[in-house]
């Protein structure tokens, strides 16, 4: 031992080169040691749930700053870094993410994008919600403005996912979760969308309730366009169901002599008394030379050209009365410029053409004119106005059913009813003569219903 102390007293000389080596070692290794510890610490934190993680290394001391989502998660993160080999001290600068009260999450849709805002409980869930929105909306920009906060209600993710499914059904609007209350506002993309959303909300996870559902349905549109050049009436838009569809289609075929192009689609969401209002509006459209009918919710807009001034006034004034209450009628009727006068033979030809394409209808066994014939009568009046110097015989015919005397009287009454209609429209009464032929001049066999229908007719004969 004595020897050892004697030797050791001479070892100090080596401390000088040792100090030099130490200096080099420190100079050479400090940065690599720090980089290595930083990488190992980051790897150790890979499985922990943290936000805004920042690792700073000073020598072998780690300063860990991060937002944790629970006290346990925070402890685990610090312990994970402390257990990294080589780490000497850990400066715990972690903190808990703020608790949101109330916990609010929003999904807002406008024309160009969907914005997700408010709070999400975990970074991974934030990513899943954004991804779900992108998937649901395919192609629409999704802006993620969500922050992170504690305090989400249980089953928040399931509720948010269900609501994200609904955002696709909105044209624009906002969906909000505030704690466990769900509020929706905006406009549904399609008819029926509002009802579909209301149905989906019944599947909200337990604990969630709908505080307000102010989603509006888009306007319920029905349109009809009468094109005199193509001789078509095009029906587009929506009808509530197949029964109403059939009813409107048959009403249109009675009112119009033109070809009906039926592009109607069935959809729920029609306003009350839809059928009554549309049938009345189609009646008015049938009296126009050319025109457009737009029924939007409870508003009816009719624009076009009437055949003569009296008809225009009639349409402007009369139709409002036919509409159910709470419906608005906005006519924009002008009068078609009068066609030039023609002689009697042309007039006869025009009458024959009109009555060949359509028939004046009456109530069964009575002389009351069916309102569906108003359009045809307007055309007959317009034609009669073009040959003001001619006298016209209005001839009534029936089928062979019933007694001859009754049929003759009925056909004359019907011819007279037509003349009364023409006179009421402004034509001089002395130009017309009513004649009832009963069933004496059939144009088809009376043994079939089709033949009988052809025999029941009114003819205009220029004298």
């Amino acid at each position, binding site marked *: 031992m004595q020897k050892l102390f004697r*030797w050791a007293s001479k070892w*100090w000389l080596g401390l000088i080169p040792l100090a030099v080596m130490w200096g080099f070692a420190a100079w050479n290794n400090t940065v690599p040691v720090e980089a290595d510890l930083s990488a190992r610490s980051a790897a150790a934190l890979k499985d922990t749930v943290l936000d805004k993680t920042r690792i700073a290394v000073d020598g072998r001391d780690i300063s860990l700053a991060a937002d944790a989502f629970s006290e346990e998660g925070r402890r685990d993160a610090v312990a994970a870094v402390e257990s990294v080999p080589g780490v000497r001290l850990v400066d715990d600068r972690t903190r808990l993410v703020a608790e949101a009260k109330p916990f609010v999450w929003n999904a807002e849709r406008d024309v160009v994008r969907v914005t997700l805002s408010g709070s999400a409980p975990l970074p991974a869930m934030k990513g899943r919600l954004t991804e779900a929105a992108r998937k649901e909306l395919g192609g629409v920009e999704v802006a993620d403005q969500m922050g992170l906060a504690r305090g989400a209600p249980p089953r928040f993710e399931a509720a948010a996912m269900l609501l994200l499914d609904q955002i696709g059904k909105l044209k624009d609007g906002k969906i909000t979760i505030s704690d466990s209350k769900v509020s929706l506002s905006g406009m549904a993309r399609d008819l029926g969308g509002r009802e579909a959303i209301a149905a989906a909300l019944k599947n909200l996870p337990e604990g969630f309730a709908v505080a307000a559902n102010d989603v509006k349905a888009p306007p319920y549109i029905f349109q009809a366009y009468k094109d005199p050049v193509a001789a078509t009436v095009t029906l587009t838009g929506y009808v509530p169901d197949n029964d109403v569809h059939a009813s409107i289609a048959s009403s249109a075929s009675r009112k119009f002599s033109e070809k009906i192009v039926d592009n109607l689609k069935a959809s729920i969401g029609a306003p009350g008394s839809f059928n009554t209002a549309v049938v009345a509006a189609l009646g008015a459209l049938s009296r126009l030379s050319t025109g457009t009918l737009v029924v939007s919710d409870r508003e009816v807009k009719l624009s076009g050209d009437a055949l003569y001034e009296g008809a225009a006034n009639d349409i402007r004034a009369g139709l409002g009365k036919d509409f159910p209450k709470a419906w608005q009628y906005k006519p924009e009727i002008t009068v078609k410029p009068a066609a030039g006068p023609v002689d009697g033979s042309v007039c006869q030809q025009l009458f024959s053409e009109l009555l060949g394409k359509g028939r004046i209808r009456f109530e069964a066994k009575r002389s009351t004119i069916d309102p569906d014939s108003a359009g045809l009568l307007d055309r007959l009046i317009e034609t009669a106005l073009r040959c003001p110097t001619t006298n016209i015989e209005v001839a009534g015919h029936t089928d062979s059913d019933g007694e001859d005397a009754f049929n003759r009287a009925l056909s004359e009454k019907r011819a007279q009813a037509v003349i009364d209609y023409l006179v009421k429209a402004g034509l001089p009464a002395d130009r017309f003569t009513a004649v009832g032929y009963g069933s004496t001049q059939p144009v088809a066999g009376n043994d079939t219903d089709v033949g009988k229908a052809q025999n029941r007719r009114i003819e205009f004969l220029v004298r």
Partner: protein
Amino acid sequence: MSYLVSFHMGWLIGSLLLGFCMGWISVVQRGNGTSKVTARWLAVLVAGLVAASFAQVVPGRFGYWLDLGLVMFACYLVGCTIGAWLRDRVVSRSQPAA
């Protein structure tokens, strides 16, 4: 400790070799070494540094450098001891022959 050793293995081996050389020389070197008083003061200084290292009171990079210095110093001492002991054996074996 094991991390420090494995990360700085080259430097520690260097310290060990340096110590070995110093130990080897110290056995036959003539002249005075450090006085007892100085040696005591040096021992106290080293003990203080070791205590500071274990108590982890020196922060950041300085703490790391201190740990590194002490580990290198420990290797140096081990090298010195081995070197001196081996030289002593070589010297004592050759003397009876002479």
